[in-house]
């Protein structure tokens, strides 16, 4: 059951002029979160902004092994993310969660390949931890516009996650989109059991799901739809799910997702 926590800001780390990581004292939520789940946050009194906004839980914070908070990785795109960017220690953020259907972690000998586009990195810190704890080998395919927009590389490296990077300007890793190194890897992975996890812009998710299908690997993608409530109340967040070979029906991504099997989604709709 989700809870609503008036979470104090523990610290706000700016990663760039657009990205920040906000640490919030919401241990109740953090302790209950599975990788890929999200929270609905609201800042400020009054009715502008009116609605909460969805954010993946980025890290689960622990002090001496005890869970004492969580972080959000946020990209500044509008009013709420601006407020998250500007937040200072002691501010209060209303935080409702954990919500949604998480990723399904795989066990060895399967390998876990996580594909992140930009702020789509968010669910993969917690997912990596869960996978590594199971002994599953983890690779992160991570793409962004430019090298300066690739964050937390050491965090993943230090924990033993293999990195495969791509930047659109070629400033680090592959020159181009992250799907290129992913496809090379898939092509060279004959005989290995691989589960592909993806989070990022929807066209990237579609490309990843198609690649996984092409190389006959399962995939799970986390979609980002506009969410009014996060609890199944408003039907704003729907995504077309395949119904037989040609049909589809709309499923609420806050309840049925945000994580779906890549082949469930009717990408052409």
């Amino acid at each position, binding site marked *: 059951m989700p809870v609503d926590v008036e979470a104090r800001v523990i610290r706000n780390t700016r990663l760039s002029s657009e990205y920040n990581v906000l640490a919030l004292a919401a241990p109740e939520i953090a302790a209950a979160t599975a990788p890929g789940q999200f929270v609905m946050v609201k800042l400020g009194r009054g*009715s502008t902004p009116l*609605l909460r906004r969805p954010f993946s839980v980025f890290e689960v914070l622990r002090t001496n092994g005890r869970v004492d908070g969580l972080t959000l990785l946020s990209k500044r795109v509008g009013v709420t993310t601006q407020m998250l960017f500007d937040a200072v220690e002691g501010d209060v953020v209303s935080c409702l969660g954990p919500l949604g259907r998480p990723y399904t972690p795989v066990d060895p000998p399967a390998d876990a390949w996580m594909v992140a586009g930009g702020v789509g990195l968010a669910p993969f810190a917690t997912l990596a931890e869960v996978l590594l704890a199971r002994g599953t080998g983890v690779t992160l395919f991570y793409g962004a516009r430019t090298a300066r927009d690739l964050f937390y590389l050491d965090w993943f490296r230090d924990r033993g996650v293999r990195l495969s990077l791509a930047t659109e300007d070629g400033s680090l890793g592959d020159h181009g989109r992250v799907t290129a190194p992913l496809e090379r890897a898939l092509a060279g992975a004959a005989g290995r059991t691989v589960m592909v996890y993806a989070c990022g812009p929807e066209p990237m998710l579609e490309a990843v799901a198609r690649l996984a299908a092409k190389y006959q690997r399962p995939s799970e993608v986390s979609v980002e739809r506009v969410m009014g409530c996060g*609890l199944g*109340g408003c*039907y704003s967040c*729907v995504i077309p799910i395949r119904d037989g070979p040609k049909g589809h029906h709309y499923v609420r991504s806050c309840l049925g997702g945000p994580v779906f099997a890549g082949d469930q989604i009717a990408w052409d709709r």
Partner: protein
Amino acid sequence: MTDLSIQIGPLTLKNPIIAASGCFGYGVEYAGVVDLSLLGGVAVKGLFLAPREGHPPERIVETPAGMLNAIGLQGIGVHRFIAEKLPELRDRRATVIVNICGSTLEEYVELARILSDAEGVAALELNISCPNIKEGGITFGCSLTGTYDVVSAVKKVTPLPVIPKLTPNVTDVASFARASEDAGADAVSLVNTFLAMAIDVETRRPKLSNIVGGLSGPAIRPIAVRMVYECRRTVKIPIIGMGGIASATDALEFMIAGADAVQVGTANFVDPFIWTKLLDGIRDYLGRHNIARVRELTGTIDTTAREKEWISS
């Protein structure tokens, strides 16, 4: 002990706080955050006879102190509702108000018949006011005879209380309340959303796939309160008021304007734990003002002139 119960025709609600249709799923989605039996009622998402796909995304967009929606009444249809949702609602002792929509008068009648036979339906709310689908009864809701006809036809086939839900997109909402009363409605509920739109100026595209949608939330509250006030001066049947209620104070404002009960929609998205706060706030207010029964509050707006007070501040 304050008495929070209110009366809608033959139906007694344990309190005047009802979850608004389309803002609370089928109710069951919220069983984990609120004890459904605590609510005065649960108005479930608008149902057609058949399942419906709804509009493609984007379906909502935020606006100043409000939101637009054009969900397009995605839904599972009345039969799956009865089979899949009603049993759980019954088990959880929710007072279920079923919001029904049709393209034709016959469809409303058929829905009313089917739901009258189902166990656990407390009342029918006739959605003749959905602004963002062509077939959502809005043709009934914008015509006085249409409203009269659909209400009387449904009344003929059901013993359940019948509550037409009025649209605010009309010149004189009180005349629609009057037509409803004349047709035998047990109550009216108002307001549904205001037809509205938003455009992304960079792409010059509408922000909703449906181009237009319905405006709800605090932004519309002052208009909705006025409409309830006008209806209260026109009809005697109970009024269920709504539009932007986000606190006990807001709910009380509607009651003082003339509502017997209220519905809360958009605010549930912002705070799904709002329900006990609303009930506590109303109890506290009644206590402070020595009002024993919430129903004594309805329509008690005082329009006599004020006296100046010396508040030594």
